[in-house]
């Protein structure tokens, strides 16, 4: 039986923490996205041909959104759980009548909420630069939520695993960012020559970017069901890992 009041308290507390830093956390991504649009959309995009009938500037919108979603969800959730470990405030969480469900829904829910707000802000920013339409808005929303939740879970695991701030930055920097850039953010993997096309299919981010692009433009590199499947599988793996972490008390209880 889950403790709803505790869950809500954790959720609100995390949101309050975000609210304190709202300016910085919104300005950064908005600025970065704008730069991408200026460089790739306006400067380079003009010389690019349409991809699958979609203008290049519009084509990169889902990819850019995914880029921000992945990095922000991961870093927000990892900070959320790492900070109490770092400051010692974790004692309260451990001594409270909350288990894995309350903690996860609270922390991951808050991180995902923040990601959703960011996603909305980025989509609005994108409108300033390019004309785009979303073919399946509901599916897009669902997909964004799924991705935000999955990578908040990943961030949560990172935050429990990390034993210092540098480790906290390591995974996003060394794994997520390269994979996202190579995952078809700025191009269709159809544009790649073999063997790179096949290699790219081992990059899980390809499926995420492709899935989101499908919800936008109704077409993508990979079948939408495969994309949804990969995302759901990733979410399930993260939840399992976290359940094991809580059961064994790894890095949380001494």
């Amino acid at each position, binding site marked *: 039986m889950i403790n709803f*009041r505790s869950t809500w308290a954790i959720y609100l507390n995390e949101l309050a923490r975000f609210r304190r830093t709202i300016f910085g956390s919104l300005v950064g991504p908005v600025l970065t996205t704008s730069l991408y649009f200026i460089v790739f959309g306006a400067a380079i995009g003009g010389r690019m041909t349409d991809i699958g009938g979609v203008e290049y500037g519009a084509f990169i919108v889902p990819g850019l959104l995914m880029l921000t979603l992945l990095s922000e969800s991961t870093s927000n959730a990892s900070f959320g759980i790492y900070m109490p470990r770092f*400051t010692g405030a974790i004692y309260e969480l451990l001594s*409270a009548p909350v288990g894995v469900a309350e903690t996860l829904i609270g922390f991951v829910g808050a991180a995902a909420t923040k990601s959703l707000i960011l996603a909305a802000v980025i989509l609005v920013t994108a409108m300033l630069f390019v004309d785009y339409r979303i073919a399946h808005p509901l599916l897009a929303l669902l997909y964004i939520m799924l991705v935000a939740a999955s990578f908040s879970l990943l961030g949560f695991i990172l935050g429990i695993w990390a034993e210092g701030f540098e480790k906290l930055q390591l995974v996003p920097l060394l794994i997520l960012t390269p994979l996202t850039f190579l995952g078809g953010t700025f191009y269709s993997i159809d544009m790649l020559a073999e063997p790179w096309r096949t290699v790219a299919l081992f990059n899980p981010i390809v499926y995420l970017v492709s899935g989101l692009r499908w919800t936008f433009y109704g077409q993508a590199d990979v079948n939408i069901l495969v994309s949804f499947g990969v995302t759901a599988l990733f979410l399930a793996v993260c939840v399992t890992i976290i359940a094991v972490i809580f059961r064994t008390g790894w890095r949380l209880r001494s």
Partner: protein
Amino acid sequence: MADVAAVADPILKIDKLSKIYPGGLKALDEVSLEIRRGEIFGLLGPNGAGKTTLIGAVCGMVRPTSGTIHAFGSDLARNWRGLRSRIGLVPQELGFDMFDTVERQVGYSRGLFGCAPDRGRVEEVLRSLSLWDKRGEQIRKLSGGMKRRVLIAKALAHDPDLLFLDEPTAGVDVELRRDMWRQIDTLREQGVTIILTTHYLEEAEEMADRIGVIDKGRVLLVDDKHAMMRRLGRTEARFTLADRMDVLPAYLDPFGLTLDPAGTTLCYRGGDGTGRGKQEVAQIARLLTQQGILFTAIEQRESTLEDIFVDLVENGVAA
């Protein structure tokens, strides 16, 4: 004076609890302890004795290696969700979101433990700890003692029945400490059972009903504070003699005095914490005067809990 019901039905029952940390260090060694409903229990021990580990095992920060813990008559490992909401903890070290404000943090703690939001109750707690004026401050801007009070306020926000205070007054000035003692007294009157650890032995002596002495992970002795004083209390007196004395005269035999090698200091150790020691010292002084033996000074002191404690730790359970 022991409340039979309370003894029969302890609020916390720890049975053969052991904790071996991953490095192999045995921080708790088959600790068994019963805490009575409504009492204030003082846990005394030197650095590294295992006090914080013991509290951690009850509160969920430490996973016991073996042994059982029952709280409110129910197995804590099994029914932790229901039981934890009735337990509060003030940790030894400061740990909270320093950038948050006092009132929000305390409200958060209340919610975290499953209580409905109640600004009135939060206000009450803050007022009782003289934190109400600081409610809107960021915690990082408070003084160390005030930060400690915020920790206490957070622990009280969900109205626990069983409260752990891990060195609550470390780094707190005398005035604030007295304030906290009063606060603890008020809590006791409200029926809260309190377990506190402290390095200030004065504090345990002042506050606790019963005292447990712990060292190297083992509980050496648990007793009523007064019984412990009676059992182990000692009066120590030193007479500085004006002239050298070669042998102890026979009339001083009953008191078991010792004479230092120089023959100028008479030492008395005796009594049992009831005042008998002081009477004997007075008697010795009278006898010496009657016999015309001049002394230039008497130094007399009652051993404190601290002496008892050092004695226990160094010599085992001698009494």
